[in-house]
């Protein structure tokens, strides 16, 4: 067996992190991801599932509504484990697919409250900020790349994008954050 070294989506051994003014962008490789769809004959799950446009945590998972009867499930810190099996134990009878390695997660935090996050978001995505309080999550294109955007808190966003376009998405997000600083 060759000696393999795991790499982050952006190609380095350690996750990339950059700060522009109040905003910090962090590549987050340790979060596992799986998709969950309830089938017609799936018994009602014990987990509390969020409704349209929302995310919520339950039993150490973060559940993100992605469509009618469908969710993406974050398993923080579990990227190197068998997340599909873990989730299948919690939602028996549902359709579950491991997604971790198809996606990249960037966390964006603000050291100056909600304002920098909102200024960032109004440049990045076509999302109505009056309907995007903490607890909201939606799929929206950022520079033509399909992403899931989560408002984790007033001053914190999570953005899931395609791993194959990790560098392009980082370039888009990094550029927006940098221009917020240079243009004041």
């Amino acid at each position, binding site marked *: 067996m060759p000696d393999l070294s795991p790499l982050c989506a952006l190609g380095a051994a350690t996750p990339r992190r950059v700060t522009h003014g109040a905003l910090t962008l962090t590549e987050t490789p340790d979060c596992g991801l799986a998709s969950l769809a309830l089938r017609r004959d799936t018994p009602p799950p014990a987990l509390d599932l969020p409704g349209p446009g929302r995310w919520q945590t339950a039993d150490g998972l973060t559940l993100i509504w992605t*469509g009618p009867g469908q969710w993406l499930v974050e398993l923080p810190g579990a990227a190197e484990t068998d997340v599909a099996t873990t989730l299948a134990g919690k939602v028996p009878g549902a359709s579950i697919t491991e997604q971790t390695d198809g996606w990249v997660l960037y966390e964006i935090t603000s050291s100056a409250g909600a304002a920098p996050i909102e200024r960032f978001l109004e440049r990045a995505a*076509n999302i109505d900020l009056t*309907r995007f309080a903490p607890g909201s999550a*939606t799929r929206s294109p950022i520079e033509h790349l*399909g992403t899931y955007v989560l408002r984790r808190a007033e001053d914190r966003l999570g953005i899931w994008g395609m791993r194959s376009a990790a560098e392009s998405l980082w370039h888009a997000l990094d550029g927006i954050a940098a221009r917020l600083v240079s243009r004041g």
Partner: protein
Amino acid sequence: MLIPHPLLGLRDAQEFTYLGDARLIERPTSGSEADLAEYVYLRDNPAGVHRELWFHEQGDRSWLVVTRNTLTHEILGAELARDVSLARKGETA
């Protein structure tokens, strides 16, 4: 142009893909070749209120039936195509 998504509220039309006449939902089950030919090839082209299928491709990937005025581009309403189809099946069942 904003589309009032029944689940997600107002969403920008650029997130959607347009398919066309919502009568595509009403696929004939009679087995008649003439009915199928009409279903496949013939469309009304109204100047005014029109019901059409839109796909929320960059969003939650649901199909919507959007009622739109083709003269003014005013959007008069939107429903989930799934609900429209289930209601139709309920009527014919």
